[in-house]
């Protein structure tokens, strides 16, 4: 029984992390119509940058800030430098170029850090265990759950209570009309892309004490976040959260039964959604 609850908790932690990564992906697609295959690579870039800052400063907080900042910078450069030219090109071209960029990013990381895995020690305030009733749970994992939840809440606040968020929500629906009302959406899009990239990098840093850093780990999270977006529905922030939690729980609970099957079950769930409700749980019909 306690195994079940601890797995449930695990699922929630994994799920919220996935939700965080997927939110960036889905908002970028919703506003810009670009599906960013380099999203996983940004996760990796953030994680490694955070590691470097951590080893230099010994402060995990600074590591989080550093990793996020680097991911943000890379995202902005990507958008300004290359993605601009692809908005009018067919979606297949966008997939291809972001895929190519992901290879470049991963190889740069491999070149700088080598191919071996780096384990990151949890910060002082994250070491040890916590007791919840009869459950014993690693303290840091509990904290990541809190951090992820808090960040998602922050994103929610930005999206639903700020002017920027208002522009993004209206822009997802009708970018041309937003433009006609006097707002330079292109500049907003740059910011959106950057925030999406930053969210991925942020997730990369906070995840590093849980899963060791390797240059190729990004693709795993990319694929999982695709599944989340398909389940939750493209362009939907609540969809990313719900989809993320569902995905996290599927991974976690099926691991209880047979660890080898957990990823497979996730894909089965995606297949079901594709057959029964192709637009996703909260997606808008015909968003292609």
């Amino acid at each position, binding site marked *: 029984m306690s195994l079940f609850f601890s797995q449930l908790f695990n699922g929630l932690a994994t799920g919220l992390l996935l939700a965080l990564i997927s939110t960036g992906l889905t908002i970028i*697609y919703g506003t810009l119509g670009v*599906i960013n295959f380099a999203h996983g690579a940004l996760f990796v870039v953030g994680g490694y940058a955070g590691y470097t800052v951590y080893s230099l400063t010994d402060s995990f907080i600074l590591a989080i800030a550093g990793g996020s900042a680097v991911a943000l910078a890379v995202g902005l450069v990507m958008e300004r430098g*290359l993605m601009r*030219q692809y908005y009018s090109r067919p*979606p*297949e*071209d966008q*997939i*291809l*170029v972001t*895929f*190519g*960029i992901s*290879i*470049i990013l991963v*190889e*740069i990381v*491999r*070149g700088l850090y080598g191919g071996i895995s780096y384990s990151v020690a949890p910060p002082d305030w994250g070491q040890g265990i916590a007791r919840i009733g009869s459950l014993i749970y690693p303290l840091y994992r509990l904290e990541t759950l809190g951090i992820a939840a808090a960040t998602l809440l922050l994103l929610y606040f930005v999206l639903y209570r700020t002017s920027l968020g208002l522009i993004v929500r209206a822009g997802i629906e009708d970018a041309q009309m937003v433009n006609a009302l006097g707002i330079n959406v292109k500049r907003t899009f740059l910011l959106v892309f950057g925030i999406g990239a930053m969210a991925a990098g942020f997730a990369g840093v906070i995840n590093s004490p849980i899963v060791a850093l390797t240059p190729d780990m990004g*693709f795993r999270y990319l*694929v999982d976040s*695709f*599944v989340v*977006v*398909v389940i939750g529905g*493209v362009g939907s922030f609540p969809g990313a959260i719900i989809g993320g939690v569902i995905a996290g729980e599927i991974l976690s609970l099926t691991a209880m039964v*047979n660890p*080898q*099957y957990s*990823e*497979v079950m996730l*894909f*089965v769930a*995606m*297949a079901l959604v*594709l*057959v029964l409700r*192709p637009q996703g749980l909260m997606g808008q019909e015909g968003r*292609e």
Partner: protein
Amino acid sequence: MNTTTHQTTAPAVSDTARATAARPLPSGSALRRQWPELLVGLGLLVAPIVLPLLGMSPDLLTRILIWGLFGLGFDLLFGYTGLLSFGQAAFYGVGGFVTAYLLTDGLVSNMLLALLIGTAMAAMTGLVIGYLTLRRTGIYFAMSTLAFGEMFYFLENSSFKAYTGGENGIAGVPSPELSLGFIDIHIGSGWPMYWFVAVIFFLGYLVARRIVRSPFGTVLRAIRGNAKRATALGHSIQSYKLTVFIVAAAYGGLAGGLLGLFQSYMPPDAFALDTSAQLVIQTVMGGAGTLLGPLLGATIWLYLYEGLQQVGSLGPYWKLILGIVFVVLVTVFRRGVAGALIDFTRRHRRLPAYIDAGASTRVASTLDIVPPLASSRPGAPVLEARGVSKHYGGLKANTDIDFTLREGELHGVIGPNGAGKSTFFAMLAGELPTTTGKVFFRGQEITGIGVTAVCQLGMSKSYQINQLFEQLTVRQNVMIPVLARLRGRYRGDLLHRLHSDKLDEQVNAAIAMVDLAAHADVQVAELSYGEKRRLEIGLALATGANVLLFDEPLAGLGPEERVLVIRLLKSIREGRSMVIVEHDMDAMFELAERITVLYEGRKLAEGLAEDIRHDPDVQAAYLGGMDDESA
């Protein structure tokens, strides 16, 4: 659905035989048409002599050929049909592991049989995955193929570990042996293996070339160009997509099987995302839509990899360099290296598509018209809407409209803005289901049965905004609807020849009707707007429809071009009934015999053009203020 020509005299037997048989080739052009095959065959023969001078080993060449074979199928899927799949590794792995398992476990001793079974299993996997993923298009399709590919990777390492050896793969795959009755050929490593794979690659290439030059292959290109219009012209595109997906899976499975034989070992990473990704990158770099692009891309990739290993300092960075090259190619040379070369030669030699050489010499007969299922007389109702309404929740787009198009009539539909013309037109065309009421085509109910079915019955629509296949020539555009009429909504004729007398005659007739014979082999993207508009009408005509719907045929045309199109519309009336929606009143009154006026979703008036002109209610509707309170 086969049609007989709409002639008053019965066709002579010899005519029919001649029309449906493949046309004998003019001498000399057979060789000209097959020059890519000759070139590739020659290249495969010459490679072992030339390429080792560049430092390429037989193993490298064999590996390139295996990737090239894998890519033949993928190029059909992506380059020709436009379906970007990131999960082809699943089929590579299934084919490879089934073949390897059968041979190592001793279940099958005949190598060719094992390869065949592996390929068949891969094809079946393609059927299942294709069915699930093709439910969506574009980005969703790419994402779900990636996910399913990954799923197979996990399955390989978990449930099927006993068969696949999990992380270890399958070792000890016996080297291939061919027993030809009188002699047994043992294919060792090195050059013998190269020749073995080269033969299979060549055969695979011949098949792929036939597919590309078949009617099936032409429809694939239409799907890539404008899937919506391909559907509206009578093709059941989901069936075509699924078929080519299975074909690509089969090629992948065969390539995987060869990999195991080549290495005497089947590696688990055959299923990995890396494998799918490598295939995509190689195809794009080499040039999608050329069949040889993947081969070229594999050469670049593998040669670069080996070459850079020699330069010590750059060795570990080969993938980074590759990534940069890839991004540059995608951004600058959209069609890859092969594509850039082809564009270059085309520009400097003005070659028409060689496949169509000789097609224009066919004598144009009159364009076939699908004969009515029942006999009809002039004035009989042909297209009817009875009490048709369309309500979207509270919004009443159309309410209770009755409409009749008579045999041989040219009937206009007009109405001020917001009258609900587009919605009504879509229901009339069988595209949109009604909320209440029914639509009948020659007595058969067609309410909402969909554009493909309606087209096959003999009705077709021409669009307000041009819906053409921009990358194809005029001739190739017109072939699409004719192919649907001659072959029905789907035919798996992957290996048939495209051109036949019947096809060419019909295509030329349609092209002549819209006066585009001078531009027949010009790419549509290069036509003027007026010429495109005529082609738009030509596509609807070429379906053989006896009932045509025209949605604002004069949209966007200048004054001179309007005159031409009006003349065209008058000239095609023989044997056809037409409905036209237009805003150009002068044109409408010049063309239409009867006119129906819609206003605020209802039918306001209907009658002879002259009567409508003088109808005070219609005048008031147009000028506004039907309701006294608004002034």
